[in-house]
């Protein structure tokens, strides 16, 4: 990728090297200046006083450890990750069913599946969550799970459909010609390969799902963001910046770990599977062949 980008500009000659050095210095100074300005302004408002103590020494009878336990255990694990852990397996099963239904020989089944994908990809997850709370009287947890499951099922089915479309046509034909039924061809030949090619996209979708759990904050589900708010309300105004900062660091770390997993799997696929190595461009454009 990096050598591809370099094509946009010449391998710099002596003059360009000098010019780039000047730009580098100028922009570095500009950014350093900007950051220094922000830090100075923040310092004027007393951001760097002992308010950060709340994260390690604690406050009001809480130790620093208590604060982190609230954030990481009550918020991240028992809130955010719990919803993710319930939603993901359900999404996997339903998305497989929906993908199979979209290729079904019966037209009616195909249309229902097509309609489901388009309708639920186009509706906000938050609306589905509110629907769970207000119309179905679900607990906040189950309302969150409902929203996550319905939306992500539609999206994952769409990803798998693109994966199947990206397979060489001969795969399906070969399956059918050795006497497998269309369903068996789908289950044993097309889907396993589609899942494999689309693995990076599927894992990226987990990041989306993880971030969407934070909508639970709005419908009163206790997850990381709700815990964050409860904590800074409890500790008072000065604790807002440290606690929101800690919470952001947790979100970013978890999501980057998941994203890194996607990159690692992508690299491994490229090494081990000739099909996947040949296809990623086509998959990127989600183009049926």
């Amino acid at each position, binding site marked *: 990728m990096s050598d591809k980008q370099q094509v946009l500009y010449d391998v710099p000659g002596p003059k360009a090297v000098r010019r780039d050095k000047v730009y580098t210095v100028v922009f570095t100074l500009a950014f350093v200046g900007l950051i220094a300005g922000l830090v100075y302004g923040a310092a004027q408002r007393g951001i760097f006083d002992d308010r950060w103590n709340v994260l390690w020494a604690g406050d009001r009878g809480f130790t620093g450890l208590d604060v982190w336990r609230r954030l990481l255990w009550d918020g991240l694990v028992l809130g955010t990750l719990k919803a993710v852990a319930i939603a993901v397996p359900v999404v996997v099963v339903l998305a497989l069913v929906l993908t199979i239904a979209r290729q079904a020989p019966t037209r009616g089944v195909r249309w229902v599946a097509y309609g489901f994908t388009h309708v639920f990809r186009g509706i906000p997850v938050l*609306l589905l969550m509110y629907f769970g709370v207000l119309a179905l009287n679900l607990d906040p947890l189950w309302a969150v799970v409902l929203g996550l499951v319905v939306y992500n099922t539609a999206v994952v089915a769409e990803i798998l459909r693109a994966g199947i479309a990206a397979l060489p046509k001969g795969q399906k034909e070969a399956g059918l010609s050795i006497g497998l039924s269309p369903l068996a061809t789908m289950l044993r030949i097309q889907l396993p390969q589609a899942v494999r090619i689309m693995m990076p996209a599927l894992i990226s979708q987990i990041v989306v799902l993880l971030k969407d759990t934070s909508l639970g904050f709005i419908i009163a589900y206790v997850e990381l963001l709700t815990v964050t708010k409860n904590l800074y309300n409890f500790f008072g105004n000065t604790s807002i*910046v440290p606690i929101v900062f800690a919470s952001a660091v947790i979100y970013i770390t978890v999501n980057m770990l998941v994203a890194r997993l996607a990159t690692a799997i992508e690299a491994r696929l490229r090494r081990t599977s000739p099909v996947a190595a040949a296809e990623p461009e086509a998959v990127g454009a989600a183009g049926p062949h």
Partner: protein
Amino acid sequence: MSALIDNFDLFARAFGVTLWVSLASGILAFVWGLLLAAFRVSPVGPLRTFGAAYVNVVRNTPLTLMFVFLVSAAPSLLGLTVPLGQPMAILALTLYTATFVCEAIRSGINSVGVGQAEAARSVGLTFVQTLSHVVLPQAFRSVLPPMINVYIAHIKNSSVAAGFAVTELVAIANRLSNGNPGDVIGIFAGVGLGYLVITVPLSVTAERLEARVAVAR
């Protein structure tokens, strides 16, 4: 549905708010995202670093956290007090969606054949000219379908503003449901339809364009 028809003026206004917030922040996000993409492919190191850092941090942060940050931490940390309501929603959505716009454009730039940029350079075009006259116009074609998907997500993301004092479609669904507990399903169906009217034409267009781009290759 009857509660929705009785309060049609509220519903229409909320629909307008969803459209306005999405449109205003959508345009700003496009400008900021284009700039970030240019940063990320530029020859100047610090710009690349800034672009990459911004995109990676913001893309991995939930939009709700962005709102919470602007409400609670920004005033004391950055000295930036954004009025709650539409201005804050527009700012948060702009900052958030710009990262996805940037990545869509960047992958489009990467999809343009190496020879194109080489040809542009060899006739003596500068970096800016190569980008604006040769690479971006071609990248635009393969960028369009993923970009439409970014904007579909963007329009739906505008619903997060419901949690932060903006009376848009989801907020009105919530409010009317609390006033008319007997008609909750009708209200939600109507509001869902309000979103689908915007998003389904977009997603169908994206699908068509995708097929056309694939054939053109």
